[in-house]
């Protein structure tokens, strides 16, 4: 019984939140890594593009709600994700047209692209605050829980329990579906293969007749679509707040780099590694050990490695360790 109590505790406080947060990071990191692989620069504006997608989705959700649209026990916002994706992809194309295409024509150094992307980041952040304002918005209107901690406890008779939020289930499921589609697309379709070819060797790809403009466009469409999902899912699960997307850049980039930047599978796994390690390292194991250890060995302190204040430091430490030991990342992406 004690063993199951400990498992329930870890599921409630580490596994479920970690998998959810990891999925959100993975979706973000996939966009970053695709842009790095195909367009060859680190896009610092990616966090704000996520925010932009979430914002458009919120605006349409409000509009829909004013007409009485609802999605049953699921959040209404999910209905409007496709609309938000279209707007976000259009915005990405505008950035490409007015900012990045110029530097691509000039064959600028990747560092110039990076600096330009920081400019785009600030512009987008300003635009978002201009449209929706700086305060937080809560737009999750569906049923909050699939089952709560209390329901779980009464059902199983355990002392500890875990609850499953609707948003957590949606996030994890959506991520798995989206990533399967993406991997299928990249590995098995002709267009996906042309993207990978372009990423591997641009000159050879051009010689074999791949249209570079089409590849660039496709990359933005995928990155923009994934970013919209990442932003909306994060907002549904937690809260939409324009300021936090700048803070999320660090874990997203860590995830991409840990997995091997430029490698989609790496970004996917990297997201979960970062999210789970943030939670595992800052969790207090007092109760868990209390259940697992014999009675006379029960800990009296909190048994916490790091205070939760240092949560963001964890992704930074992992990033540094990976860069020292294996600079190409776990799945051998490109070196930066």
């Amino acid at each position, binding site marked *: 019984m004690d063993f199951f109590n400990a498992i329930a505790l870890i599921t*409630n406080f580490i596994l479920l*939140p970690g998998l959810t947060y990891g999925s959100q990071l993975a979706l973000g990191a996939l966009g970053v890594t695709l842009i790095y692989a195909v367009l060859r620069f680190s896009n610092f504006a990616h966090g704000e593009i996520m925010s932009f997608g979430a914002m458009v989705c919120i605006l349409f959700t409000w509009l829909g709600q004013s007409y009485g649209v609802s999605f049953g026990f699921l959040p209404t916002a999910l209905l409007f994700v496709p609309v938000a994706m279209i707007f976000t992809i259009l915005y990405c194309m505008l950035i490409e047209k007015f900012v990045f295409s110029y530097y691509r024509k000039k064959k600028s150094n990747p560092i110039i692209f990076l600096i330009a992307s920081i400019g785009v980041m600030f512009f987008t952040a300003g635009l978002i605050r201009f449209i929706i304002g700086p305060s937080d918005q809560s737009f999750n209107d569906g049923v909050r829980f699939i089952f709560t*901690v209390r329901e779980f406890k009464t059902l199983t008779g355990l002392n500890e329990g875990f609850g499953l939020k609707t948003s957590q289930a949606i996030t994890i499921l959506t991520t798995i579906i989206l990533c399967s589609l993406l991997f299928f697309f990249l590995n098995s379709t002709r267009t996906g293969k042309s993207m990978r070819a372009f990423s591997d060797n641009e000159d050879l790809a051009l010689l074999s007749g791949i249209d570079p403009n089409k590849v660039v466009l496709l990359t933005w469409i995928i990155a923009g679509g994934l970013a919209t999902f990442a932003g909306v899912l994060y907002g549904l699960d937690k809260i939409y*707040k324009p*300021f*936090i997307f700048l803070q999320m850049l660090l874990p997203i980039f860590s995830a991409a780099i840990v997995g091997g930047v430029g490698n989609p599978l790496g970004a996917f796994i990297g997201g979960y590694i970062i999210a789970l390690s943030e939670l595992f390292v800052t969790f*207090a194991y007092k109760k868990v050990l209390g259940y697992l250890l014999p009675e006379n060995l029960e800990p009296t302190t*909190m048994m916490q490695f790091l205070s*939760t204040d240092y*949560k963001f430091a964890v992704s930074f430490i992992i990033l540094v360790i990976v860069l020292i030991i294996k600079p190409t990342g776990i799945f051998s992406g490109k070196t930066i």
Partner: protein
Amino acid sequence: MKKLITTLLALCLTTTASFSDVKLGIIIGFTGPIESLTPDMAAGAELAIDEVNKSGSFSMGNVSGIRADSTCIDSSAATAAAERLITSDKVNGIMGADCSGVTTAILQQVAMANGMVMVSPSATSPALSTVEDNNLFFRTAPSDARQGQVIADILQEKGMKNVAISYVNNDYGKGLAASIEENHKAAGGTVTISAPHEDDKGDYSAEVGALAQAGGDILIVAGYLNSGGKGIIQASLDAGAFDQFFLPDGMIGESLPNDIGSGLNGSIGTVPGTDSPGAATFGDLAKAAGFKNGPFAMESYDAAALMLLAMEATKSSDSQVYKFAIDEIANAPGEKIYPGELGKALDLVKAGKDIDYVGASAVELVGGGESAGNYAQIEVQNGKNETVAYR
């Protein structure tokens, strides 16, 4: 351009050289993070000044208030403004400042150096209770040390022995958390954990994870209702970590029960407030004068009134003289004085009679000149903050 500058200079000179006999400096943050509260606070202080002037019972002539901006957060700008009030406007006392940080700076660098009385309506940091002040500093706002005591009392009554505390990582949160912990332990309770949280984060599940492992009958959230405090409560409810929350003054507002919903029902809280008849009277006076009875407006009225009554009692507008009368005016024995009765009060002290200034916020000065503090005990019932008792 030159002409413009000369006219402006001339204007400045004429405005600063006002011809009142007694002047009160009103230094609060007209710009900065509490700028939405300060117009009503200044109006409260000016209402007291007006009332004294209209009564005609003030023996040292006409009183005027001179506003200055403390900015709430910028200590150097605040001390410069206070310096200007004393050296160029020649005020006889300072009503202010508002936020704890700038209040300490003005007290230590300007008021003590110039021997000027300061009465703050809203600085609540416990550190101001013990600061060296040469008897010059008073406040009509209670210290958070007092709130900690009230909270410990309520916890004791409700039989909650084990409590967890999550506080916002700044002077307010730290001071309040320390005070709650000290008082609760003194009353025989246990604090299982006292951990900080940062404002403006998206995700508080890690913080709540640590709090939940420590456990407790109730979670005390010493934060802000529109930011981290709300995040902690939402994440606690999601994870099933705590069912009941204690909400100190930074967490009391209509928006919190609206945002959280039914999960907050049964939570308890404290916020400065009084059921003294003075509060209602002041509300009417404020309405008649055309301003809102906002947070700390009552305390501002009381701060200005206390200084003027003390001047009349000692027949002196010199800080070094009237500072000794403030405690006596504010406390029993004597006839109770409510808002709108300043004329009567002036006549009484002139005749050498004792008064007990109750004012709008039920002033009772303790421990070196700070308000004993009156709190309303809040309980969240059916998604609304209901006042269940006063202490």
